[in-house]
């Protein structure tokens, strides 16, 4: 029987945990890109402007219907062939995960806007708000608060999906686990460690955001 060695785990810990900032940076940066693109795309889609909606719909569906891993690989290996930019593995990963996240956030946002009762818009318009003012002062403030839980959920998904950048060589938590496993031949301890690191990150993120969410909730 394989015996579980705590000392192997402790020895591997510093090297593996050095991947935490990398994983976090990729996740946070991708979330930022996701928000910056997802919010306007979702808002525009909620307005249902025909020609634009076709393009934006295609964008969203592309990212939702291809594997994230393929997207990451595509941005790392294929993008430099098409346009003359050389993205580092980390940047390619951030870009792919960010755009992927933006597609999901756009859908969440669109649903939130459409789900915010039509009556809210009518009330605002009737008071003399323009369409833009209605969005800005009445609809979006409500949607953002209601969307906090899905946002957190998306961030947790992102932290987990970010492990896929190991495939293009980024030294994140996952890839460091691969490296140590090859050196030590102790996959049990190493990957348990890796799993624990992801678990702590994701669990802490959801707990933290739960607190923020309660603070921001619209009083019922």
């Amino acid at each position, binding site marked *: 029987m394989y015996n579980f060695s705590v000392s192997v785990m402790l020895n591997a810990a510093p090297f593996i945990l050095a991947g935490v900032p990398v994983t976090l940076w990729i996740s946070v940066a991708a979330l930022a890109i996701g928000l910056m693109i997802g919010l306007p795309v979702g808002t525009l889609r909620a307005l249902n402007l025909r020609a634009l909606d076709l393009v934006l719909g295609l964008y969203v569906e592309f990212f939702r219907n291809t594997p994230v891993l393929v997207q990451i690989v595509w941005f790392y290996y294929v993008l430099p062939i098409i346009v003359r930019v050389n993205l580092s593995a980390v940047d390619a990963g951030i870009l792919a995960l960010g755009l992927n996240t933006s597609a999901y956030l756009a859908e969440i946002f669109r649903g939130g806007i459409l789900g915010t009762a039509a009556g809210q818009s009518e*009330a605002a318009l*009737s*008071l*003399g*708000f*323009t369409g833009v*003012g209605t969005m800005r002062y009445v609809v979006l403030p*409500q949607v953002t608060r209601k969307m906090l839980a899905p946002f957190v959920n998306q961030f947790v998904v992102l932290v987990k999906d970010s492990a896929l950048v190991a495939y293009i060589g980024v030294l994140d938590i996952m890839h460091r686990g691969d490296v140590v496993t090859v050196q030590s031949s102790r996959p049990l301890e190493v990957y348990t460690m890796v799993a624990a690191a992801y678990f702590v990150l994701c669990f802490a993120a959801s707990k933290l955001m739960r607190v923020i969410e309660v603070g921001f909730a619209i009083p*019922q």
Partner: protein
Amino acid sequence: MKSEESRVVLALRDVRKSFGAHRILDGVDLRVSRGEVVVVIGPSGSGKTTLLRCINLLAPIDHGNISVGGVTLTHVEDGLPISRVRGRELSRQRAEIGFVFQHFNLFPHLTALGNIALALRKVKGMSAREAEAYGRELLSWVGLSDKASAFPGHLSGGQQQRVAIVRSLAMKPRMMLFDEVTSALDPETIGEVLEVMQRLADDGMTMLVVTHEIGFARNVAGRVIFMDGGKIVEEGPPAAILGSPRQARTQAFLRCVLHEPSRRTHREVGS
């Protein structure tokens, strides 16, 4: 007569509106004069809400003409727009007419005071202090001074509707539209909302009120309109329409409303 003409706040000429193939408004002609309280009654689906939404330019019309204070807001001939206000002017004209909704439609993320102050600041350009001061004044007018910092979710239906009324009133509209504003309320809070509406009427507000509160119609309205199938079937003084309607459809509707206890409509409110 010129003087009478200048007293007209709202004028509709042959207004028609369809949703798909379904004709909802089928040639409505209506004039409301300054200070007049007009009550609209009619069966469900007769187009009452649609009429109010068209007047407030929340829904486009397919034909006819709507003007407020002599200014044409929209003029359409058989689907062909002849003239209509747009952009900022459209928003400005909407604010000239208050709309109080069946389900209040207060902004749930803002306090009672915040609900009133928002448009005062962002639409009218008042300072935060001015807006709050005016908002508090209005809240006290409807007996809700102590609820200024309460969120809609923490207010009763009647309280929410009173906030909604003064939120709309704050914009100093030329006239106000009321769409069954008491029909989503618990019976015990209906009276407090009708009382506010009665005071508005007493203060000379021009009002177009869709309601099933026959008591309110009898005691406050200057004129009652019965709508059915997207048309004004009959109109006149409350005593005539409610007491001795001439049209069979009006008679049938009133029999229904007055004798169906579950609709709580025959209470004599405001008397």
